[in-house]
Structures are given as structure tokens and as C-alpha cells.
């Protein structure tokens, strides 16, 4: 937002690009979970574009991004976050867009030293080189710490009006936002990608381990964002909704997965992932009964729906509180 605003203030035409990888935190989690409904229900990138008065293009990179996640040349950060490869990929896609739409250079909000992996002095040139953008990549917020780029050398941008931010503190950005009259902005600092989340990364690793291959589809990575993931044995996993919002979301997958729910419709909806036996389904029903409102009842009717077959009802005893071993939780 700040980098774009600095460009706009120099009279430069700016359009925004926002890449959808499938791992984005905002949007989906807010849409799914009831408990997030108090948050502003907006796409922050669109909101920023509107504030700045610029166009925003949202680009679906779900398929192309797989190679970044599965085979990052520079490895992962603390969890499964391939930040440096990710940055090079996105700037690379921006460079392709620039070429196709006859723009002149790319602007990012990167700052030297801001992030431990992808925004170090040593790695900023890597992004410029590996993306193909070269010196058409301008970082206005920290330009004075870097060699002049093509837009600066050509005089398209006044280098004297660029900045010298560095380090992890966000105070300079916050001060600049105030100076520019931007009194509301998206929360700075990370947290926008599920691949940086320890629990999400564990679930993705579990998926790969039990599929026998490191691969995924969009539905896979969406489902990892939702519910309790319980794996009683290899090849059999349950995704159990934790609240009404998640249950509504999981409803959309009932044509793809076997699903279970208390017959009166109250309590969680669960999806079954894997090839399962009747004993597995009985166990799944007992788990669902455990998380439903009738957990103290002696027997609970659970509707089991296998795609393409008539639903049937299993009468089961809910699992006891200690009936789900801790190691089953993914």
C-alpha cells in the first residue's frame, strides 16, 4: 500500500496484482468460521486498491504455485513456508504480466532486513534475478540501501523521493502511513499464509505421508484449513467440523466424501477421507457422537451418507472423553 502510494504521489500509473495460491489466510477462514464473522468481511487487497484508486487484478496461481510448495529451490522457512521461492515466483508472474500489458516496472513493499528469509540484503537480489525482473524491480521503501534500478536511472522515478527503511521494526511504515493520511491499513507482518502455521504444516505433511506422494489439489489444502483432523489409522482420516460455519463449509463436500452427522442434524458434520471398513465407520460415528450435543446419551443415531448410495443410520455409543488418543489428532 505504501510503496504504491509513493509511486502514485510521483504521478506514476499503478495497477495492483494479488496472487491467490490457495494458502491465503484471509478471506477463506473468515468466510468459513462463525467466530471470525466479527472481522471486517473484506478482501484486503481490494480494499487497499479502492483506497488508492487503482485497479487490482487477482490472479489464480493455484496450479503453478504447486512447484513452489513441493520443490522450493531455497528450501522452507520454519514450517512449510517457501518464502524466498514464493517471492521470486510472484515477482516473476508480475514480470510476465508487465510484459503482456506494457507496463514498465514492478514495485513491491519489501524492506531490507524485514524478514529473516526472503527480505535480507543477500536475498533481495536473488528475487530480482530469479524472477527475471532484474532491475525493473523497484523497492521504494528501502531504495536508498540498494543500487539504483532502471526506473531510477532513466528518471521515470525520482530516487530522492524514495526511502531508506530497513530492519524488522514497522514503526517507520506506520509513521509514513500517518504522514500520507492512511489512517487505516491491513495488519503488518506475516500471518497471511497458512504455510507459516505450525498446525497447518503438520496437517499438510500428514496428507503427503498418507497419500504416499507430495502433491495436492485445491480441495485438499482448503479442507486442511477446517475442522479437527483425526487419523485413527493410516488411510483413514476424519475431518470434524468445530462449529456451524465449518459444518456449512464441509456440507459442500458431501458429494465427494462419505459424511456423518447426528440424525437430528445437530452437532458436527464429519467427512471421511480414505478407504474405510464398516468398523471404521462405526468408530467415525462414535467420534461424531462424542463431539455432538448428545455425548452423554447411551446411544446416538448417526446418519452415514456414502456418495451415490442411500443414507443409513448407525446407533452408536459416544466415545468417552478419553476415547480419542492424543496421537490421533493431526
Amino acid at each position, binding site marked *: 500500500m505504501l510503496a504504491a502510494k509513493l509511486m502514485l504521489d510521483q504521478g506514476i500509473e499503478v495497477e495492483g496484482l*494479488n496472487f*491467490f495460491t490457495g494458502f491465503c489466510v484471509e*478471506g*477463506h477462514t*473468515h*468466510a*468459513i468460521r462463525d467466530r471470525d464473522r466479527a472481522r471486517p*468481511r*473484506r*478482501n484486503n487487497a*481490494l*480494499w487497499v*486498491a*479502492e483506497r488508492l*484508486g*487503482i*485497479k*487490482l*487484478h*487477482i*490472479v*489464480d496461481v493455484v496450479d503453478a504455485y504447486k512447484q513452489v510448495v513441493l520443490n522450493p529451490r531455497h528450501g522452507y522457512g520454519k514450517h512449510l513456508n517457501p518464502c524466498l521461492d514464493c517471492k521470486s515466483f510472484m515477482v516473476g508472474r508480475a514480470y510476465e504480466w508487465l510484459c503482456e500489458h506494457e507496463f514498465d516496472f514492478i514495485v513491491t513493499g519489501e524492506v531490507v532486513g524485514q524478514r529473516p528469509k526472503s527480505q535480507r540484503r543477500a536475498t533481495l537480489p536473488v528475487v530480482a534475478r530469479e524472477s527475471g525482473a532484474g532491475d525493473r524491480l523497484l523497492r521504494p521503501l528501502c531504495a536508498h540501501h540498494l543500487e539504483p534500478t532502471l526506473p531510477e536511472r532513466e528518471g521515470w522515478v525520482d530516487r530522492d523521493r524514495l526511502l531508506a527503511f530497513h530492519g524488522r521494526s514497522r514503526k517507520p511504515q506506520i509513521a509514513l502511513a500517518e504522514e500520507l493520511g492512511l489512517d487505516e491499513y491491513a495488519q503488518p507482518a506475516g500471518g497471511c499464509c497458512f504455510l507459516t502455521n505450525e498446525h497447518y504444516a503438520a496437517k499438510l505433511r500428514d496428507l503427503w505421508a498418507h497419500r504416499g506422494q507430495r502433491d495436492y489439489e485445491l480441495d485438499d489444502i*482448503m479442507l486442511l484449513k477446517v475442522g479437527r483432523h483425526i487419523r485413527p489409522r493410516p488411510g483413514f482420516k476424519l475431518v470434524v467440523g468445530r462449529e456451524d460455519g465449518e459444518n*456449512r*463449509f464441509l456440507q*459442500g463436500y458431501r458429494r465427494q466424501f462419505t459424511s456423518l452427522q447426528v440424525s437430528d442434524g445437530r452437532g458436527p458434520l464429519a467427512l471421511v477421507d480414505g478407504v474405510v471398513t464398516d468398523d471404521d465407520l462405526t468408530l467415525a460415528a462414535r467420534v461424531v457422537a462424542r463431539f455432538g450435543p448428545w455425548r452423554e446419551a447411551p446411544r446416538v443415531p448417526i446418519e452415514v451418507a456414502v456418495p451415490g448410495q442411500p443414507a443409513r443410520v448407525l446407533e452408536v455409543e459416544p466415545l468417552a472423553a478419553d476415547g480419542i488418543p492424543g496421537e490421533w489428532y493431526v
Partner: protein
Amino acid sequence: MSTGASDEMVGPVHILDARRLLCPMPVIRLQQLVATLTPGELVDMVCSDPGALHDVPAWCRVHGHVVLETAEVAGEITIRVRVDGTA
């Protein structure tokens, strides 16, 4: 809910089923469709993510398109968009 926008330019109506898609996918699908259309053409979107009620109008505003009408019935959202600007 009607936005009160003018509806005098009425062109072909295209149906976009974005049910089960979570934001920003409905916006991406709309963006892809609008890129193939000309000013005056209409898009009737059907969505299930309530976020579309915010994101689609915001996307239309920044690109100069017009949301003519929105409605939400039993968790299903319909949005009528008139193509005016560029994708």
C-alpha cells in the same frame, strides 16, 4: 437489495455459477468472464460465500463495472453486474 443504479444499457446475460467457491475465487471467475465481454453485457452470479457481497462490488468499483442488484435468499447470493469498464 437494489443499488439503484441505472439499468438502461441491457445486453446479453451471462450466468456465472460460483457456488461452493470461497473468496477470492468468485471474483477471479468474474474477472475471467468479464475479460471476454463487452460494455453493456450483463453477468448474473450465484455465490454461496457471503464474502462475495463485499468483494464483488469492490472489484466492480475499482474496474468501473456496475453492480445492478444483489440478493441473498437461504444462503444463496445472487449479484447482477453490468460490464462498463475494463477487466
